[in-house]
């Protein structure tokens, strides 16, 4: 018995089950979602493995709809009797449900982009492979009397959706996320690096760890400089985070049309309406989504759990290439199907990835061309302060350095910032070459007048 094989079905296996379920359906509309997969991880701290595990699961959800009343039932068993029982149960729940006045009829067949964000190498990861990846990160740290804490998580899974209007979609997907924090033995220096890939053969935990090691050693003896407005170079990990809120994700996550039109968004306009079509930031800012980009492939439909920005996939809407901000102008917002119908516009779903266009400069080039500034490795504990202006607060962490005359001069103590990504993208000085971060492509940015409001003693 192999727990992984039990949980990951092929397209044909998934289609067979979904068709079987639909053959039992008696409701006005019925949809089926089948998901399964394996997640594995290894975590280490204090230069040794702390926890490591695997989890597998396979489950099927059936949604039945009568008029505007819907019900969902789920099951983990797949014999005919169990499948039929689940359909009946969903129908029973639907009959008892309150009417949803915003319910939209299910979509018929859709055309999806041909994307396969799947890697056999990632699927074949074993506990020994994870131990080796951790060793490659721990080994150089142990040799230099540095302390590593890191985490690698791999996931391999699939989602299939189908409905009584003949929509069917299947996607299998793999991903690996890795991050490491290296600290000096005396706790006075700390450095960080993170990577995420679809194909694990592209991940080199030793290479990433060496960057974190350099930052840890270079950040010892941080000096306190006055908080205030500074030119900053923000590395991609300071703009997008895998595990926490971040400035660019916060902005991309706030582009819902309904909130804007209801007057409770940074895109709401004084006097009513939205700021669609207005230039809100520097003309070099262009952000678009492309699910087919080979560096950041995504599900063609967002999947059962939805895209990175909150679904739009569960209903089967195709992901597509779309521009959100072009030359600083807001070009598109995303819609629920209900709101799009009400407004008579296309129901653009929230994206599954985004690409911010950048330049050709390396981070080193950007430092070289900086007269005075601060290099920020990453931000931490970013939280909204004012949703009206997208004002966020948070702190620098794991490698903050003072730059003078094109050179890193010395490490500085961490700062708290209070800043809005909209103000930040107006104060753009330069952009570097985009890199993959959290499934997106994001360049390092040089920003003037970035607002630091206090100092922190944290290392």
């Amino acid at each position: 018995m192999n727990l992984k094989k039990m949980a990951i079905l092929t397209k044909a296996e998934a289609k067979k089950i979904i068709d079987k379920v639909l053959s039992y359906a008696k409701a006005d509309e019925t949809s089926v979602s089948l998901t399964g997969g394996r997640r594995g991880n290894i975590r280490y701290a204090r230069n040794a493995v702390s926890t490591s595990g695997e989890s597998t699961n396979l489950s099927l959800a059936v949604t039945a709809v009568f008029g505007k009343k819907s019900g969902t039932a789920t099951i983990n068993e797949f014999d005919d009797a169990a499948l039929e029982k689940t359909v009946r149960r969903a129908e029973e729940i639907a009959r008892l449900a309150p009417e949803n006045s915003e319910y939209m009829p299910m979509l018929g067949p859709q055309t999806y982009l041909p994307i396969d964000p799947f890697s056999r190498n990632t699927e074949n990861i074993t506990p020994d492979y994870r131990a080796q990846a951790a060793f490659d990160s721990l080994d150089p740290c142990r040799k230099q009397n540095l302390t590593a804490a890191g985490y690698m998580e791999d996931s391999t899974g699939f989602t299939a959706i189908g409905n009584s209007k003949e929509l069917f979609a299947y996607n299998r997907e793999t991903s690996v996320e890795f991050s490491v924090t290296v600290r000096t033995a005396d706790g006075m220096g700390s450095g960080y690096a993170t990577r995420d890939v679809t194909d694990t053969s592209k991940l080199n935990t030793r290479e990433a760890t060496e960057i974190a090691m350099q930052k840890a050693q270079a950040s010892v003896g941080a000096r306190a400089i006055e908080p205030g407005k500074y030119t900053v170079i923000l590395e991609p990990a300071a703009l997008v985070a895998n595990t926490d809120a971040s400035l660019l994700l916060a902005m991309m996550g706030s582009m819902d049309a309904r909130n804007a039109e209801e007057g409770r968004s940074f895109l709401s306009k004084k006097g009513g309406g939205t700021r669609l079509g207005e230039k809100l930031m520097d003309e070099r800012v262009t952000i678009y989504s492309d699910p087919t980009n080979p560096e950041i492939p995504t599900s063609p439909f967002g999947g059962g759990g939805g895209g990175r920005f909150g679904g739009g996939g569960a209903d089967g809407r195709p992901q597509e290439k779309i521009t959100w901000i072009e030359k600083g102008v807001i070009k598109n917002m995303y819609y629920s199907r209900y709101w799009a119908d009400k407004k008579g516009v296309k129901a653009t779903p929230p994206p599954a990835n985004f690409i911010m266009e950048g330049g050709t400069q390396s981070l080193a080039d950007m430092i070289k061309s900086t007269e005075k500034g601060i290099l920020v490795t990453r931000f931490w504990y970013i939280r909204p302060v004012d949703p009206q202006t997208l004002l966020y607060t948070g702190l620098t962490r794991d490698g903050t350095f003072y730059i003078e005359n094109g050179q890193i001069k010395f490490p500085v103590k961490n700062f708290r910032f209070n800043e809005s990504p909209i103000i930040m993208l107006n104060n753009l000085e330069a952009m570097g070459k985009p890199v993959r971060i959290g499934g997106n492509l994001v360049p390092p940015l040089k920003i003037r007048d970035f607002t630091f409001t206090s100092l922190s003693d944290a290392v």
Partner: protein
Amino acid sequence: MNRRDFNQLISMGAAGIMMPALPAFSRTVTPEALLEPGLDVSMKKRLADAALNAAKSKGATYADVRIGRYLNQFILTRENKVQAIINSESYGVGVRVIANGCWGFASVGDARDESVVAKAAETAVTIAKANSRLLTEPVQLAPQKGFGEVSWKAPIKRNAFEVPVKEKVDLLLSANSAAMQNGANFVNNVLFQINEQKYFASTDGTYADQDIHRIGPSFTVTAVDPGNGRFATRNSLSSPMGMGYDYLQVNPKDKSTGITTRYNKGYDMLEDITSAAKQAKEKLSAKSVEGGKYDLVLDPSHLWLTIHESVGHPLELDRVLGYEANYAGTSFVTLDKLQSKNFAYGSKEVNIVADKTQVDSLGAVGWDDEGVKTKKWDLVRDGILVNYQAIRDQVHIIGEKESQGCCYADNWSSVQFQRMANVSLEAGKTPLSVQNMIKDVKKGIYIIGDGSFSIDQQRYNFQFGGQLFYEIKDGQIAGMLKDVAYQANTKEFWNSCVAVCDQSDYRLGGAFNDGKGQPGQSSAVSHGSATARFNGVNVINTARKI
């Protein structure tokens, strides 16, 4: 808040409402299914023994198994609409082992068969052995006696899952209607109900069957001024609680009256949402704060979050030791500070306790997730640091002989680790009302409700917002303020505490979804306090133009 929560928040369009994530691998079920009994305890014992035996036969020197059934009902509404009613169940088994001195963990969903559970145990041993080549020090587990077959049940008065959905929907929609009638432009109102049915067994000989309930009503009222394009929100002053539907029972003795009413163990949603609608509108034209030093009077509905971030987290021993260095961070409260026995965490007014037994709290349970009987212990006494929070594989580092019983996993699919106990500020010993506390303040701000929160990875520098801010001038409340946040250093802040109101003002606040660990896990925890005063805290103005 992890990214999944964040996504959910956006997808629901519930501006400002903190959504707890559904447990991993949840499936949706009928409301009636939430009342089904789940596996019989003798069946759970059979599955547990299958896992423990398989682990031992493959070479594990210790093993524990958690058979978990996690039931949730989330009701989401906005204005006059029910957006969604989500009933979900997540069932599965997680097995943790020590083999070759290393931890290993594996879990499997919907396991009702002894062979599947045994397979998960074998996988856990394989993982432990694969990692043992990286071992520096074998796991040192504090000894724990077995308790045999035991059980614990949260002392709820009314099981929320037994309350008809219609009754709950009617309450939320009538509250929404009250908000709209009182000037709100929008209202998002949600009710979360959670039941964790956990069965724990270990090779130490404990078989603990536990039944845990939580409830969390929460709303955001929004007022919009289209003329100037501004909007303001006011969130509910409710708290998630380790209670049943009895939390929504209105009871005058659970109300603290004043400039606005705050609640203890009985929450009056209609009253609070009516005030919220009026206050959201009032916020639109409130005076923008002038930055500078103020004396802060902090209500328990606000102070719980400051306690959570600046006391609860830094006193977690795994953080102090570096186990969370790559994610949540480490701590400024290094071991030498405890050993010195004279580290002044706060002023003499500051007494802080950890408590896994506090009735109606989110963290209350009979046994923790590694079979340790729960208890209450001091963290800060008369301002001096006296202890941390620690579990079995770390407690020897602080010279303790047994774990403090604060190990927790948020799901059968997650591995258990150290999580925060309920950490609370004790009420003052001398009689002091909020009114008398405010009377002595010359230049201050009275803050009610939690808002924006952020703190660094070693827990020195923090910034907090709130829901309601009132200017205090010469002992009197002078009117509402907006754009307020305070920034401080943890030690300076707690040493600036000059007074804590008495027990009659003591109330619980808390969080459903405290995030920690990789992969991220969510834990629910309460924090009690009475209103407290902090002198000379730095306040900033957060207004911006874009």
